């Protein structure tokens, strides 16, 4: 029988998170895919809040500062406990059997290369804050901290310990948990990529009702305020840096122009999509940041930095249990509240945004790979960054001319430029710094817009372009309006205040994720609807009796007549089944099987086509 040449079926590229059957035609500019409740309520709340803040900025600022102060004083212990519980939970998840589960199912393949993935994780997770606080924070702790005598060697060591605590495993554990929960419930359970989905094991179908809408609206508003206020405040810092470098002056006009430029870049990046826009910018960002690090490492106190990295890491791990559970109980002070608790509130408030973004770019990773990639790799990169800049600044203070610690008290953004002035080629490194700042801003802004797009599109991971444009522009407009009208700090404080309710949400999310994983069956599996044609057969005893070869059972031989097994069961009808044909080609001599097996041409295959077409 003639056979068609055997050809392998071309491998189908795995479906990414945006390739689902419900994906709208996002290429069309007029296409719209929104969740009306979440989209319009969020937009109205954002615009209304901005207007009210501008109108009553002093009162709004006082109100939220009062709330934030009360939260830090009364619920500091709760933040500390929540952060530690989540870190332990994530570490347990990493080594548990759930670590083998692949996000998107066992056939899923990662959408991005490891480098692109790390670049996006790092850029969205830490962003601009790290650039400024890598110098400023160790300097603050070195100058004034209750943990050691200010300005001493011990203070320098403690400064790095505390900075590592604030930027290390704890914030990344929060991001990991939120990202993991979102990715798991979306990619493995088929729920929308939205904060509401992570509560499915607890709330069931109610996530699609008002409770789910409220959760998504809270996440949208908090994310936009967080990104927009950071953009507004950060632009002031960029302006200060440019003024320091080129003496262009500082004014709201220049800052609005800077916001327009950054928003334009972020809008292009969001419209270009994840692969062409955000990923490429994140990679450029990582290259520029690495270049800056390399500059400081080579031109700065290289040996001091290299020595410090290992020592800082060792100290951090040694004192982690002590520092991460410290509540300043016996000292009765407020330092820990104004630093550690503030940071915990800040990271938790940002977790819906960063977690959602991390989930979006992590399709196809196993849970273990996800945790290693999101918890450990960015933490190590962050520690290297903090050591290069923080220890360089400490070196200047301890062994050099000093002055940075004092400057930090007055102006945080200028601190980094002051540090760079201590080394050769400071004009080039300062310019590079400005470039890194701008790219960090753009990557924070575009990933923020993308996250809001996804949530307000009802969890569509690839929303239409018109919506992306709307949110990217609204983000820039809110930042500019608050910059000109006032109220940036007030709204930022409001965003951080959401950390307390969100800490509760995180614990709830952790329980929900644990429950979801415990009942999860890997992969899509096999399922077939029951076939009921109204006929049933009674099963019969029909054991085989193969022939014997040299006293051995022949596993591929011809069966003899059936007989009952072991004990006689006369009441059971028996049938002769199986082993009806000796499979000569499987074992035995080659000669015996000659002409038997199908080769590349398919010889030896019996096609049973007779009657099939006719039957149809």
């Amino acid at each position, binding site marked *: 029988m003639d056979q*068609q040449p*055997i*050809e*392998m*079926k071309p491998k*189908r590229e795995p479906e990414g998170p945006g390739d689902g059957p419900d994906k709208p035609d996002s290429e069309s500019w007029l296409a719209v895919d929104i969740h009306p409740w979440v989209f319009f309520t969020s937009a109205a709340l954002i615009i209304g809040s901005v207007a009210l803040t501008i109108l009553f900025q002093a009162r709004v600022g006082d109100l939220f500062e009062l709330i934030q102060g009360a939260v830090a004083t009364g619920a500091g212990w709760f933040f500390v406990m929540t952060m530690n519980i989540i870190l332990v939970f994530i570490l347990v998840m990493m080594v548990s059997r759930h670590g*083998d*589960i692949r996000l998107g*199912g*066992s*056939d899923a393949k990662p959408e991005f290369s490891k480098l692109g993935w790390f670049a996006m994780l790092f850029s969205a997770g830490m962003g601009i804050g790290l650039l400024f606080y890598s110098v400023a924070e160790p300097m603050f702790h070195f100058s004034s901290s209750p943990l050691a005598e200010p300005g001493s060697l011990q203070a320098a060591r403690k400064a790095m310990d505390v900075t590592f605590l604030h930027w290390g495993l704890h914030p990344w554990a929060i991001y990991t948990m939120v990202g993991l929960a979102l990715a798991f419930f979306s990619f493995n359970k088929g729920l929308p990529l939205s904060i509401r989905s992570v509560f499915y094991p607890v709330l069931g179908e109610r996530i699609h009702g008002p409770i789910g809408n409220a959760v998504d609206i809270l996440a949208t508003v908090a994310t936009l305020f967080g990104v927009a206020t950071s953009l507004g405040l950060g632009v002031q810092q960029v302006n200060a840096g440019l003024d320091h470098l080129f003496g262009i002056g500082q004014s709201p006009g220049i800052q609005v122009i800077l916001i327009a430029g950054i928003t334009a870049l972020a809008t292009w990046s969001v419209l270009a999509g994840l692969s062409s826009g955000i990923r490429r910018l994140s990679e450029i960002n990582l290259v520029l940041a690495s270049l800056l690090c390399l500059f400081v490492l080579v031109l700065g106190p290289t040996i001091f930095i290299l020595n410090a990295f290992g020592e800082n890491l060792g100290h951090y791990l040694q004192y982690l249990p002590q520092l991460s559970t410290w509540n300043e109980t016996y000292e009765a002070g407020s330092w820990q509240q104004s630093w550690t608790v503030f940071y915990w509130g800040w990271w938790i408030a940002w977790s819906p945004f960063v977690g959602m973004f991390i989930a979006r770019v992590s399709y196809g990773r196993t849970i273990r790979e996800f945790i290693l990639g999101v918890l450990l790799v960015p933490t190590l990169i962050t520690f290297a960054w903090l050591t290069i800049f923080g220890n360089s600044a400490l070196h200047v203070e301890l062994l050099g001319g000093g002055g940075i610690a004092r400057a930090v008290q007055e102006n945080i953004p200028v601190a980094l430029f002051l540090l760079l002035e201590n080394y050769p080629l400071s004009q080039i490194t300062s310019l590079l710094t400005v470039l890194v700042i701008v790219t960090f801003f753009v990557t924070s802004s575009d990933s923020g817009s993308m996250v809001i797009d996804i949530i307000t599109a009802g969890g569509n991971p690839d929303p239409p372009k018109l919506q992306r444009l709307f949110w990217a522009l609204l983000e820039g407009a809110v930042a500019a309006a608050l910059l000109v009208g006032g109220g940036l700090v007030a709204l930022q404080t409001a965003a951080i205040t959401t950390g307390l309710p969100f800490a509760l949400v995180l614990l709830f999310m952790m329980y929900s994720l644990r429950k979801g994983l415990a009942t999860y*069956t*890997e*992969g*899509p*599996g*096999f*399922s*077939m609807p*029951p*076939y009921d*044609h109204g*006929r*049933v*057969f*009674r*099963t*019969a*005893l029909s054991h*085989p009796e193969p022939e014997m*070869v*040299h006293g*051995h*059972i022949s*596993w*591929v*031989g011809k069966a003899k007549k059936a007989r009952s097994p072991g004990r006689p069961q006369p009441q*059971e009808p028996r*049938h002769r*089944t*199986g082993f*009806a*044909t000796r*499979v000569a*080609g*499987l*074992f035995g*001599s080659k000669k*015996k*099987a000659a002409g038997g*097996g*199908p080769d590349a041409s*398919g010889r*030896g*295959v*019996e*096609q*049973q*086509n007779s009657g*099939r077409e006719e039957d149809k």
Partner: protein
Amino acid sequence: MLEAIAQRFQGSCMMVMRRQGNEAAFLGSSFLVHSEGYLLTTARAVADDGDLFVVPPDWTQTFPAVTREEVAPVPVEVVARDVPHDVALLKLVPELDINMPEEVMGSAESDPRGTALMSLGVPFGYYRIHTVIAAQSILAGRITSRPGTRLIIFDRRVQFGDIGGPLVSSSGAKVIGVVGGVFDPVELEGLSPPEGVSLQSNLSFAMDIEYGAALLRQALGE
């Protein structure tokens, strides 16, 4: 990992049976390989056409009864047989909406020795014990029989009812073979062992899944 594989493939493994009067006689195990209703089993199990059907496993109970007194048949027809390599392709006669992974079949070539494997089947189906059993083993070796059939050797002694079931690799969770039987050196070489020497083997063999994949490709016209 093996737990995940067992959970994933438990719905794929079905009993092949033949109607004899108003009764159903067990012929062996089979497994789904394509969402259009294609299954693989051994050629010897379905050597005779007619009155063939499959019975999906019953997962409605955690501790099901030993025997399913009555079964609802899903008719199948033999699409192709590769008798020399002992693989047959079946197709469900009714068109059913089957959900299953996109690509089930992998390659037996890439997994190194020692790779964890899982075989699924109904080992005692002939004896009316209608339970799908998942059993673990390792990839012990590969061999080409004298007539040229590629066989995968794994370190578990299968039962007659297991024959025709899938052999799944833990690496990539793909089927790499169709369970064929116990790997018996006496039968393989047709030799008589010296008196007093036992050559009982605890190893089993499976036919390379590529033989099944070739049948499927031909059936799909690829």
